[in-house]
């Protein structure tokens, strides 16, 4: 419905509005006015009927009191001058009619004389029964009836007149709507044309005829046209200022007043301040970017060196790890050798103990040999003495005895030498036994040391592995750091390029009147 209404022209809307108002008025007139007229007419008729019955009752009271019907007839005959009275009758208290006018229309018996009046409306008439009262009380009832057909005829005539007026009123409304619409729509159409061209971006007109046409009168439309012209002037100035701003000139201000101009001027001021800030920021950004670039290069170089150093340290740690493994292997070998040495020294000690026993036995045998040799020497000595005493005969025996003595002495000397050797062997055996004991203790110590070395080497290997793992993690972190530094350097290069481009862009703006205030 709203879309339908929006699509309608203003002229059609005015026509529709006038027609609608006419329809409302017509409906009101046609529905309310006849009924109201009928009711008013009926009220007037009832008042008239009641007052007439009152007059008749007052006039008929005296004749009824004396029972003179002629007087009453005379009263009723006066009703002939009233054509709208359909019938009339004067009833006695006993229900008989004392006098009547068109009484044949009465279809019912006489009313009750209860002292109260009553009004009855039928389809074709209105009837009133009015009591007749005398000084001594009720005397009878006056019945008076008026036909409704004359009233209805008057009402139809009134309705015809009203309908004719409404039709004329409809024509008048249509004509008024047409003229009023034309008076409003023509200047509005001109303003619509100008506004459409402005809306399409056309702010300059060829000869200003359209603008001149807009200034038309001092009524609301004229004031609207004047406002539109001022708006055009403001838009032209705003367009020119916007063009200057678009060219990068931020020095101008709008001279027109109003919130739009204030907002535009504030916007230009804000842009100027922002450009100043951007300029300063771009300078700082360029400086900071240069510093960041240098720092990123240094960081990258440092990270690369650190990475190389950590790689070298990692390789060293790997070498340490391998050395630790070697040492552990060697320590295990040393441990095995030391244990074998201990077993060997134990065997040697046992052998030396046996050797000591043998040397003791040899010493005993040597004593026996020495004793035998001594006795042999002694025998040979005494034999020599005997041979000497035998003289020439014992000479050869003396030679044999002397030879025996030399043999015995050689045996004794040899035994002595052997005893020295045995003593040396004993001493050597003792020292060797001590050395063997020392070697055994040394082997035990070596075994314990080898165990300790194995344990320490294992701990060192574990620690070295942990350090190596740490070095690997550091290497990974440094690799990430190098990558991050490279990314930072690349990003900084891009940022520097953007800062240079920003400076170039800012150099296109003019922010002060001297022209020196290039933003960059």
């Amino acid at each position: 419905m709203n879309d339908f209404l929006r699509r309608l022209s203003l002229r059609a809307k005015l026509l529709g509005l006038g027609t609608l108002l006419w329809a409302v008025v017509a409906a009101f007139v046609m529905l309310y006015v006849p009924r109201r007229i009928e009711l008013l007419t009926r009220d007037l008729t009832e008042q008239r009927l009641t007052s007439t019955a009152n007059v008749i009752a007052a006039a008929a009271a005296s004749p009824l009191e004396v029972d003179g019907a002629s007087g009453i007839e005379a009263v009723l005959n006066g009703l002939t001058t009233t054509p709208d009275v359909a019938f009339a009758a004067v009833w006695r208290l006993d229900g008989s009619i004392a006098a009547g006018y068109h009484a044949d229309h009465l279809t019912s018996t006489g009313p009750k004389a209860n002292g109260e009046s009553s009004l009855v409306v039928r389809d074709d008439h209105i009837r009133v029964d009015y009591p007749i009262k005398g000084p001594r009380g009720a005397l009878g009832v006056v019945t008076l009836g008026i036909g409704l057909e004359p009233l209805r005829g008057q009402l139809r005539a009134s309705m015809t007149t009203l309908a004719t007026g409404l039709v004329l009123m409809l024509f008048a409304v249509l004509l008024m709507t047409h003229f009023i619409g034309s008076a409003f729509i023509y200047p509005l159409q001109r303003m619509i044309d100008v506004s459409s061209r402005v809306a399409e971006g056309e702010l300059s007109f060829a000869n200003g005829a359209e603008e001149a046409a807009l200034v038309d009168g001092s009524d609301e439309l004229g004031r609207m046209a004047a406002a539109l012209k001022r708006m055009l002037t403001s838009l032209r100035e705003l367009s020119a200022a916007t063009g200057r701003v678009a060219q990068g000139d931020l020095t101008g201000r709008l001279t027109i007043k109003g919130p739009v101009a204030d907002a535009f001027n504030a916007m230009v001021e804000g842009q100027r301040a922002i450009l100043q800030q951007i300029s300063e920021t771009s300078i700082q950004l360029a400086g900071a970017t240069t510093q960041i670039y240098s720092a990123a290069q240094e960081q990258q170089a440092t990270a690369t060196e650190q990475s190389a150093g950590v790689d070298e340290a990692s390789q060293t740690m790997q070498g340490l790890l391998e050395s630790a493994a070697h040492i552990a292997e060697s320590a295990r070998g040393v441990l095995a050798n030391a244990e074998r040495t201990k077993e060997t020294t134990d065997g040697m000690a046992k052998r030396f103990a046996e050797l000591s026993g043998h040397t003791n036995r040899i010493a005993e045998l040597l004593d026996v040999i020495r004793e035998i040799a001594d006795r042999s020497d002694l025998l040979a000595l005494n034999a020599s003495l005997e041979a000497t005493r035998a003289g020439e005969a014992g000479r050869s025996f003396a030679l044999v005895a002397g030879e025996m003595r030399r043999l015995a002495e050689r045996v004794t000397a040899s035994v002595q030498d052997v005893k020295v050797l045995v003593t040396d062997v004993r001493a050597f055996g003792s020292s060797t036994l001590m050395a063997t004991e020392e070697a055994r203790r040394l082997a035990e110590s070596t075994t314990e040391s080898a165990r300790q070395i194995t344990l320490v080497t294992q701990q060192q290997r574990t620690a070295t592995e942990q350090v190596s793992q740490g070095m690997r993690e550091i290497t990974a972190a440094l690799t990430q750091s190098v990558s991050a530094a490279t990314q930072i350097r690349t990003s900084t290069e891009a940022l520097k390029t953007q800062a240079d481009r920003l400076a170039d862009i800012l150099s296109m703006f003019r922010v002060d009147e001297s022209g020196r205030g290039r933003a960059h």
Partner: protein
Amino acid sequence: VTAETIHGEVVPLVVLVGHGLDWAIEAQNVLNAQSAAEWSGSPPIDVAALWGARWERGSNATRVVVVSTQQGACAFFSARLAFRNVGRGEILPLPPFVARGSRGRLIRGVVFDESEPTTFVLNPDAFMDNPKHALSDSLQGTIG
């Protein structure tokens, strides 16, 4: 011409071998030799101790030489014994002023030989003349 012709009859000597100095007893007077370890008689005479000398180092088998004298047998201690034949003329008498001394009387003669140490030939009878002196310092010598 033999050595016997030059130096007289051969005299066998039982030599008590000392350290650079020997003592000797004529073998005819020696009855026997015994082991000092098994000797159970009177303490033997130690001539090395008597002259303040030392015995030649030998085996541990020290000896006791039993010698017959006019007064009986006497015993001499020795570390080592040897036999040596010399001519009677090689046994040279001591000078008189030496031979008259108390210890000089114990020496019958001396034998010089370039290839052997100087050898004093003992007079066992002299020992028996003064047995107290002869036995007073017995067995006090040292074996070199």
